[in-house]
């Protein structure tokens, strides 16, 4: 089933940010969200991931199929790279963390505590987590922050492999990911008309 946003409105801090967002993401495809800073990409992705309720409209095909990666990586600095990954694999009832470790070139860092990694290495570990979720739809918020060119390529390969296995990916980013097959959606055009926050409307 496709992941669909139908006439979706999202708000942050009570202020409507985007309105009328409509798209559909089929399996095997990738969609890149673009838009200037503060456009509402993060807000939209959090809504898609089910972390906040939409203001209006609805989302379909998201139930229990989404693996979300946020600005923060959710790593435990006192656990090693493998321990961090195995934990998430356990949570998602998966077994094998080896492919993830290979795909993001973490082999040499296996026993290192996550807290001692460099910014880019942390990010790689955060992305490797996606591969142990077993979920078909990846929802990624600026996945390549702090990554060097080689790691961005690793990431693009991983996404491509995921798409080939029938997965899908929804990403927000400002830079070029090297994923030419991805469609692009500019969220700028969905900007909500400036008005008071949704919760304040009752008082007008």
């Amino acid at each position, binding site marked *: 089933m496709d992941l669909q946003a139908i006439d979706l409105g999202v708000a942050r801090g009570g202020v409507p940010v985007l309105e009328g967002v409509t798209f559909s993401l089929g399996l095997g495809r990738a969609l890149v969200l673009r838009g200037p800073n503060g456009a509402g990409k993060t807000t939209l992705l959090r809504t898609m991931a089910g972390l906040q309720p939409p203001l209006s409209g609805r989302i379909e095909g998201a139930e229990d199929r989404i693996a979300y990666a946020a600005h923060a990586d959710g790593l435990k600095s006192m656990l090693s790279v493998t321990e961090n990954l195995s934990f998430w694999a356990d949570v998602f009832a998966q077994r094998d963390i080896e492919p993830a470790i290979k795909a993001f070139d973490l082999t*040499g860092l296996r*026993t*290192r*505590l996550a*807290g*001692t990694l460099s910014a880019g290495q942390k990010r790689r570990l955060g992305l490797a987590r996606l591969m142990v979720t077993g979920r078909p739809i990846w929802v990624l918020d600026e996945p390549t922050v702090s990554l060097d060119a080689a790691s961005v390529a690793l990431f693009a390969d991983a996404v491509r492999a995921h798409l080939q296995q029938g997965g899908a990916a929804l990403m927000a980013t400002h830079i070029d990911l090297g994923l030419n097959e991805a469609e692009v959606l500019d969220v700028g055009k969905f900007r909500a008309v400036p008005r008071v926050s949704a919760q304040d409307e009752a008082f007008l």
Partner: protein
Amino acid sequence: MSIWEYANPVKFIRTTDRLLPWFSWAALSCLATGLIWGFFFTPDDFRQGSTVKIIYLHVPAALMAINAWLMMLVASLIWIVRRHHVSALAARAAAPVGAVMTVIALATGAIWGQPMWGTWWAWDPRLTSFLILFLFYLGYIALWSAIEDDDTAADLTSILCLVGSVFALLSRYAVLFWNQGLHQEATFSADKEQNIADVFWYPAVISMVGFALLFIALVFLRTQTEIRARRARALMARERTL
């Protein structure tokens, strides 16, 4: 040749490897002699009955508890001033030994207190100071184990040890002011030697020497262990970087 040579970890391990058996056997024999003599072959005190036999454990443990902290203080100073790794690790190695000595002093004291004072615990200044000393040990050990980086941990704990020592002294005065106590005066001081009968004195001294040797042997062994652990980590790190 300067004494600082022994601050080299490898040298330290080699030297202590040679010394360790001697200290261990000496500690064992002194402890055995002192305690067996004290337990089996000393008369009961006319006032305290057989409880006086607790003295062979209580006093040495109490002394070592204090001396261990002093040793840690000195080692911390050496680390701060000269940054010899062995001294930092020795301080780290001594802390749990000192903490256990403190617990022994507290436990034997409490057991002694029940028949003598009719209570397991009283807020007597000396007892209280010991409890505070125990808290300092706990904090010191907790801080060591909470910090990942070894040198940072050494730096922080040695400063804690310095500041803590000052506050421990302050606490001692505060506690003395707060409550006047029940506890024995120091009867083992050199100038009052005759205060205590020779029958009790000899085994007590032997036992004290035994505790001191045991402390030294344990600190040697544990420092070696810390050094080896550091070395293992160093080799592993190199293996990874290669």
